């Protein structure tokens, strides 16, 4: 059965979720929580035990990438980061060139810990800079200033081989001209990787409340689309083309960990609210852990992983998941792999129609969403799959 080895086409990564933040940002719907005290020993032990349990059911694998996400993992004690990496190295085989990324907030407090993180084994950071304009940083609820972010980024550059940062655009009140200028500044500052996200109003966030009350204005879809188009053009010129809908990199500087998701590989999800995709003897399963930090901690102390359930993914759903992730990439998805996963081909008439509309391109068995198709990917997928 091809499904048994399918994940090898994309590799194997480990994701660790650190759920704590110094403050909750008003746009963020991630599983993040503000706690005055965190029992660091208990958390470290729980993470280590969870990793051991996950390794026990995926024995003999080589870990290509590790990713500390959150929350704010740069708030983690470096010893905990070290213990996690050490456990991964001991329980699986950690590839000699493994990419080990940690998300960091660009404040002086965290910058002070960069050397320790590096010593623990982290070789890449991804910084939540979010904006290069103090007024907007404040509106986004961020605790840093532009100057502070620049300083922290400089330290990161000197400590780590690879550094990336995030910006949020199509922000309230932002025009195309402003964004073009800001993006050029960002490209001057960038090293080899940039994540550029359009602001999304997520349900359950403070921004959603403000938006509902009419106190927060978003650019129109037309304006947001124009900003997206400008982003593609400017980054392309600067040698940092988009390799995914919101991610730009110099050649060979792409996030290998995130590529495992988009290529539909296997990944372990450890910590509260972490998701995983694992090909086990019984087939591919989706794993999920308890969302609330305390609930996860208690559950993990009982069953090691704090599971909130595991679901077998049907072949059809696997094919769909592969397609919806892989079409985000500029390189596109492999139709042969789609067919092997789900046991059925996509409707050729649908493909032809979407090619005709300039949404898709087909090169051999590779199906590629065009720039136009990528910005309409949700509609494109719905059309392609019905």
């Amino acid at each position, binding site marked *: 059965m091809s499904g048994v080895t399918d994940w090898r086409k994309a590799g194997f990564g480990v*994701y660790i979720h650190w759920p704590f933040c110094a403050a909750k940002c008003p746009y963020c719907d991630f599983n993040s929580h503000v706690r005055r005290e965190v029992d660091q020993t208990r958390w470290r032990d729980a993470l280590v035990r969870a990793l051991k349990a996950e390794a026990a059911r995926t024995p003999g694998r080589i870990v290509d990438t590790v990713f500390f996400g959150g929350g704010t993992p740069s708030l983690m004690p470096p010893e905990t980061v070290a213990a996690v990496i050490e456990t991964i190295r001991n329980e699986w085989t950690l590839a000699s060139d493994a990419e080990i990324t940690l998300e960091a907030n660009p404040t002086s407090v965290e910058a002070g810990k960069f050397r320790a993180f590096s010593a623990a084994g982290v070789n890449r950071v991804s910084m939540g800079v979010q904006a290069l304009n103090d007024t907007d940083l404040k509106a986004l609820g961020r605790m840093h200033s532009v100057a502070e972010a620049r300083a922290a980024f400089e330290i990161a550059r000197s400590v780590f081989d690879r550094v990336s940062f995030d910006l949020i655009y199509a922000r309230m009140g932002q025009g195309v001209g402003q964004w073009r200028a800001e993006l050029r500044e960002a490209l001057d500052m960038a090293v080899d990787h940039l994540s550029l*996200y*359009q*602001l*999304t109003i997520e349900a359950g966030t403070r921004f959603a409340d403000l938006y509902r009350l009419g106190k927060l204005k978003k650019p129109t*879809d*037309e304006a*947001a*689309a124009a900003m*997206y188009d400008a982003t593609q053009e400017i980054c392309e010129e600067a040698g940092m083309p988009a390799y995914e*809908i*919101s991610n730009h990199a110099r050649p060979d500087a792409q996030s290998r960990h*995130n590529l*495992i*998701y988009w290529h539909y590989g296997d*990944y372990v*999800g450890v910590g509260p*609210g*972490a*998701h*995983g*995709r694992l090909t086990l003897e019984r087939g591919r399963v*989706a794993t*999920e852990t308890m969302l609330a930090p305390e609930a996860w901690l208690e559950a993990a102390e009982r069953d090691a992983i704090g599971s909130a359930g595991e679901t077998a993914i049907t072949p059809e*759903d696997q094919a*769909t*998941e592969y397609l*919806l*992730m892989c079409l*985000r990439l500029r390189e596109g998805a492999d139709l042969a792999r789609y067919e092997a996963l789900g046991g059925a081909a996509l409707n050729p008439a649908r493909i032809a*129609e979407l090619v005709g*509309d300039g*949404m898709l391109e087909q090169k051999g068995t590779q199906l590629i969403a065009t720039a136009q198709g*990528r*910005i*309409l*990917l*949700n*509609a*494109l*997928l*719905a*059309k392609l*799959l*019905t």
Partner: protein
Amino acid sequence: MTKTENIRNFSIVAHIDHGKSTLADRLIQMTGGLSEREMTEQVLDSMDIEKERGITIKAQTVRLDYKAADGEEYVLNLIDTPGHVDFAYEVSKSMQAVEGSLLVVDASQGVEAQTLANVYQAIEADHEIVPVLNKIDLPAAEPERICTQIEDVIGIDASEAIHTSAKSGLGMEDVLEAIVTRLPAPKGDPDAPLKALLVDSWYDAYLGVVVLVRIMDGSLKKGQKITMMRAGATYPVDRVGVFTPKMVQVDELGPGELGFLTASIKQVRDTNVGDTITTERAGADEPLPGYQPSVPVVFCGIFPVDAAEFEDLRAAVDKLALNDASFSHEVETSAALGFGFRCGFLGLLHLEIITERLEREYDISLITTAPSVVYKMLMKDGTEMEMHNPADMPDVMKIEHIEEPWIKATILVPDEYLGDVLKLCQERRGVQVDLTYAGTRAMVVYKLPLNEVVFDFYDRLKSVTKGYASFDYSIDGYEPGNLVKMAVLVNDEPVDALSVIVHRDKAEPRGRSMCEKLKELIPQHMFKVPIQAAIGGRIIARETISALRKDVTAKCYGGDVSRKRKLLDKQKAGKKKMRQFGKVDIPQEAFINALKMDS
């Protein structure tokens, strides 16, 4: 067999909500037809749809045993009839099976258009009519004013109207006594050959076809061989009985009695309402006058949203038709919608009820196309044809002229809304026939083309009068009209299911309104979608749905896959509720909603 002198047969004429069903419930309770435990609200409305909407669709009958003040035991047969204009045919059938009517009028609301239409049918059937003022205990009740109104508007004596409150039970004894003393007993010869009027029939899952009969002469017994005089078929009678309202078997039914028979009849279609039933041997020579057959006046296409459900739809439509002889259907194919049925209905409510039952009882999602009336096409070669479907419009060069059906509408409305009602009727090409006042209410009679009424006239009327107007109509015949077929093109392709026949003068505003509606109803696509209305090759209105500019999830990582996939599944399910035309998805409700006009 009960002596005819001790039988009274009656129906109840009332406007919706004036308390007819409650009154019937109360009479059943008073005479002990059902135990306390068996009493539910609206006992006689057995369909869910009837109970929910508070309306009666099929006539029902019930036999009440009553010991009157004179010490005699009487059998009172009540036929409960529908109130809505669409079912006027049911009403007229039932009226001919009884000798009298209770005219129930809400003591504060007064006479409504529906009451008027039904009471005229009762008068036409030579009924003795007993006025009943119901809801007399409400503070707003004005019995004197309403009595005067009954006398002025209907022209019958209301001085001895009975005051009741069916809800509290007040006056029920008076009603029962009035039925006995004021309504005539039926006539009939028990020794003459059997003559029974086939009033109605329906399919029962356990008993097969159940036939409701009124015995005129002779008697009907179990085991008899009967002949349907018009249909010519003969059946042995399996059961004879009455409704209490439960079905209770009896040995025989005699003159003046109402009851049922079963006779291993397979299909409702084998029984013609209005037919005369007699015995095979020594039967009657002359049949009863019978009824005019019912004629569908509104037609529309019904298609399954999912083309794969056509066979399920066929089974469901056949089953519904078993029980509703006034609902006609034949297979229709649409270039846009595939296989479906062209169905004929007695009116818009009938259409709504049938489609709702198909969706609810048979769980089939439907696309209902624009309701259309029956046009007469007089061709240049001298032939005449009927057109039920705009898609069947012949080549205009071959048509001499087109005739369309007109109705005579009676509208009763408080005078503060009169102006709006007149405006609405004018907009719909109406011609005023009469305008009179009864107190503070106006009665307007208008001639209107039926095709201006079938879409949403009643909805509009309700909305401009805040629900205070009542409306009734009768078909008034055909007249030539300057009519054209308006086609609708979506993304440059004609969608046959959206084409309509309109008056030339109305074509442009109608075309604009449909294009604007469709612009709202059809979701954005990845490309821009032009919508056009055209007569012949000429575009008379156009709108464009702009293309989607942005529809993508900014962040999608390992934790988002499941959620994303579920969202996609939901989108796919949503697409199933749409039909694809060329490259465009049109939601099922668009076909009807595109026709609704805002003004």
